[in-house]
């Protein structure tokens, strides 16, 4: 006899022109960790928004039964009153407010309308202890790293007497240590009787932590699997998500001998702009060859993005020292324009913040970095621009009705392809791809890997930064490991394993 804390039945939700959910079922047992998997656009977030009342009762059809009672939530407050709390992918802390203030935001510990600070801070401390966060509750939330902010969010949920905790991509921005801690915490909460629903693209994690997994595809429930009884594997999950067997997660690639060296970064040191004494990158030396895909592995905070951005026109950091050689000659890359001129391209980690002009159309995003190639005396050749955008749409299979559609209407994977197109159009010799498949669904990941392979086949040097070690192992010819700003190891594809890489990535002592 199973006891379900939540049953969602026959949920159908339509937006003008699209049906996001069709007859979806979700049943969550009391006291379990329930994973929800699916590609981007499969309907996971929509389902969670219905559950948490963001989409009000009446805007969808179907039934939500929580703890044996029919629910008709008119908003988040209604669902929270019942003990359903959702933690979104984008953390919702106010950076200027203290941890304690954030914990009780909208739920203040007050006496007759005045906040009781002693009570607030004391209660905050208690909740922080529960999530294993040793921080002073008066510390501003913005001073914490992403991992700790995530813990504050969970503490906040606990302060609301949560019974069903929903986490949307909780580890997307976390390094492996923080992820492991978070997953442990979830197990602990489960043992205390709190039911969790976890949405994640990291399938290994889901299998690791969840008891049951529900797979959504194209707005329908495909299946619900028991992790242990069904001996769930990643391949099995992927098969359910994409609706076919994905024999290889990485496209085949003919191994070629790397060509001559294109880019050499020597003794590169970068200081933090906020703490100028701190070395974020410390004497790093890297080299890239023609036709080579090189990985850069490192935990969060190891200085991967900072290294890339400081090389790309000094877009990050202060007191930068070191030398950069392109084709054997030393170059000076003082600005982004200089970097582009020297044939360096940087596809940023966060495409929405750093990569795209979301209100502009696809065409203008594709031409944004290479506008000079389309211009004559300051005037843009619009016809040529259109042709270029169309060409990249075909080549990269960017799914959009046409290139004049605003970029924000595209899915994550297609937006990422637009950013790739933007940089491919500048005809670079060196491409630095920072988390090229973050927030991208399985199918589009494969396509992006194929694009990376073809860039290497054209003789370009590609540097891939990724938090997902399997991605680096599947894609790269050679991998550098970075720890605390230092290059601690270099492995060829043949030598590299997750364990070896992890050892270098966590190595802290000096050489």
């Amino acid at each position, binding site marked *: 006899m199973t006891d379900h804390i939540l049953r969602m039945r026959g949920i159908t939700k339509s937006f003008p022109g699209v049906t996001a959910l069709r007859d979806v079922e979700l049943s969550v047992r009391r006291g379990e960790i329930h994973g929800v998997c699916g590609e981007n656009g499969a309907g996971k977030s929509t389902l969670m928004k219905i559950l948490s009342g963001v989409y009000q009762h009446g805007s969808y059809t179907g039934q939500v039964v929580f703890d044996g009672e029919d629910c008709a939530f008119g908003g988040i407050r209604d669902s929270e009153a019942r003990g359903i709390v959702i933690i979104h992918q984008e953390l919702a802390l106010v950076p200027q407010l203290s941890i304690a203030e954030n914990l009780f935001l909208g739920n203040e510990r007050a006496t007759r309308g005045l906040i009781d600070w002693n009570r607030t801070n004391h209660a905050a401390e208690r909740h922080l202890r529960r999530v294993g966060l040793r921080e002073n509750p008066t510390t501003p939330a913005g001073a914490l790293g992403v991992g700790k902010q995530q813990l504050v969010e969970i503490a906040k949920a606990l302060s609301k007497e949560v019974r069903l905790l929903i986490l949307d991509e909780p580890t997307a921005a976390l390094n492996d240590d923080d992820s492991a801690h978070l997953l442990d915490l979830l197990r602990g909460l489960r043992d205390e009787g709190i039911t969790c629903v976890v949405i994640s693209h990291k399938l290994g994690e889901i299998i690791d932590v969840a008891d049951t997994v529900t797979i959504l595809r194209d707005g329908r429930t495909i299946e619900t699997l028991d992790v242990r009884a069904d001996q769930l594997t990643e391949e099995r999950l992927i098969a359910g998500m994409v609706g076919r067997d994905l024999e290889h997660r990485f*496209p085949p690639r003919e191994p070629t001998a790397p060509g001559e060296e294109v880019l050499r970064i020597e003794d590169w040191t970068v200081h933090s702009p906020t703490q100028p004494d701190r070395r974020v990158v410390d004497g790093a030396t890297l080299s890239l060859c023609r036709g080579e895909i090189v990985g850069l592995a490192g935990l969060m905070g190891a200085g991967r993005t900072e290294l890339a951005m400081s090389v790309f026109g000094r877009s990050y950091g202060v007191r930068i020292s070191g030398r950069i050689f392109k084709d054997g000659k030393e170059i000076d890359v003082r*600005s982004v324009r200089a970097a*582009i001129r020297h044939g360096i391209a*940087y596809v940023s980690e966060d495409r929405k913040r750093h990569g795209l*002009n979301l209100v502009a159309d696809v065409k203008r995003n594709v031409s944004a970095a290479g*506008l000079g190639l389309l211009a004559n005396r300051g005037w*843009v050749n619009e016809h040529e621009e259109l042709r270029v955008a169309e060409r990249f749409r075909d080549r990269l299979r960017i799914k959009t009705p046409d290139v004049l559609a605003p970029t924000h*209407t595209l899915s994550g994977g297609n937006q990422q392809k637009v950013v790739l197109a933007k940089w491919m159009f500048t005809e670079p010799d060196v491409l630095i791809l920072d988390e090229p498949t973050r927030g991208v669904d399985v199918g589009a990941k494969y396509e992006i890997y*194929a*694009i990376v392979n073809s860039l290497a086949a054209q003789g370009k040097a590609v540097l891939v930064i990724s938090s997902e070690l399997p991605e680096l192992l599947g894609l790269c010819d050679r991998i550098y490991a970075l720890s605390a700003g230092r290059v601690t190891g270099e492995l060829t594809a043949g030598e590299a394993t997750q364990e070896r890489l992890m050892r270098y990535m966590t190595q802290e002592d000096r050489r």
Partner: protein
Amino acid sequence: MSLDVVPGSDVRAPAEAPRRLRINPRQSGIYVAFALIVVLFAVLTDGALLRPGNISNIIVQNSYVLILAVGMMLVIISGHIDLSVGSVVAVTGAICAVLTVQLGLPWWLAVLATLVAGALIGAAQGYWIAYFGIPAFIVTLAGMLVFRALTLTVLGNQGIGPFPDEIRTLANGFTGGYLGNVGLGPLGGADLVSLLAGVLVVVGFGVAQWRSRRARQGYGQSVDPMPLFVGKIVFAAVVVLFVVVQLARFRNLPWVLVLLAVLALGYSLMASRSVFGRHVYAVGGNLQAATLSGVRVRPVTFWVFVNMGVLAALAGVIFAGRLNQAGPTAGTAFELDAIAAAFIGGAAVQGGVGKVVGAITGGLIMGVINNGMSLIGAPSERVMLVKGLVLLAAVAYDVWTKRRSGAVAVR
């Protein structure tokens, strides 16, 4: 570079792009709204709104706000705001008056010097905004006070005038009847030059639209269906010809209309086709993405404000010329009209979106409301009320359409 880079990827075949009608409700909405407002007031005023003299009036009366709206549109697209333009209009009008009336400089030299002064004012403000990093709201709020103070310092409590005839003609005058009049039957005589100019504009517009349509078809892009395409052009042609015929029957073309037409065309091209214009959109759309794409953000911001200063100076000369005197209260609240015109005309609050033609349409919507309501004898407080509500409605509509399309995108 012709490799098919995704071989054997059969994840999903790219969906064949549906040929659908591309109507941007936000952009076309204001033209429809403008048409409706014109019809409404034409009916309410028994046609007085559309009489030859009145059409001429609307254009001349609103010319300086329209000029400001063009510059303001660029400022807003770049993600900033300029509160100082009203005071800049006043101080540049005063400068022009001092140069012509008191120092007796030739009119063209005085106008040129005034425009340079406007550029310097824009540069001063642009420096603090672009290179020092102070929000434009603060810098131009300070500018609003400083330049009003300068105006009062120069002028004291009284105005300076009268202006030379040439400046008055630019602001208030009409083109001459160089080719004489032609009879238009029951409509009476009309100026041939004005009519020819109108026909030229219509033909030019039609040809440009046709060429761009052909080019887009050549690249396999979706275009409006033929009836809609022709309908749009015919509608525009009818409107232009109607206005021109009315003007030709009255007193030929106002010089400011010629000036406005040149500005509208020039700035539209600049915004959409020049590298600088593209960079303005890029900076306003996503500052960090623009920076990382190699856009020199600071110079772009700086020059947007220099441009605003020049246009404000132009508006200052025309406003002073129209009143035939530079007064200490000139330009009061013009910044609000210009900002309202830009937002009614489709600018987005966050920046990155907007069109020059939209700003002009937005300015004309307010001009027609002003004029129409005064024709039916509405008191000025009611005019203000209606303008405020129109601004609110326009931006509410913008937010609403965005939210609706956003709901589809964010699944």
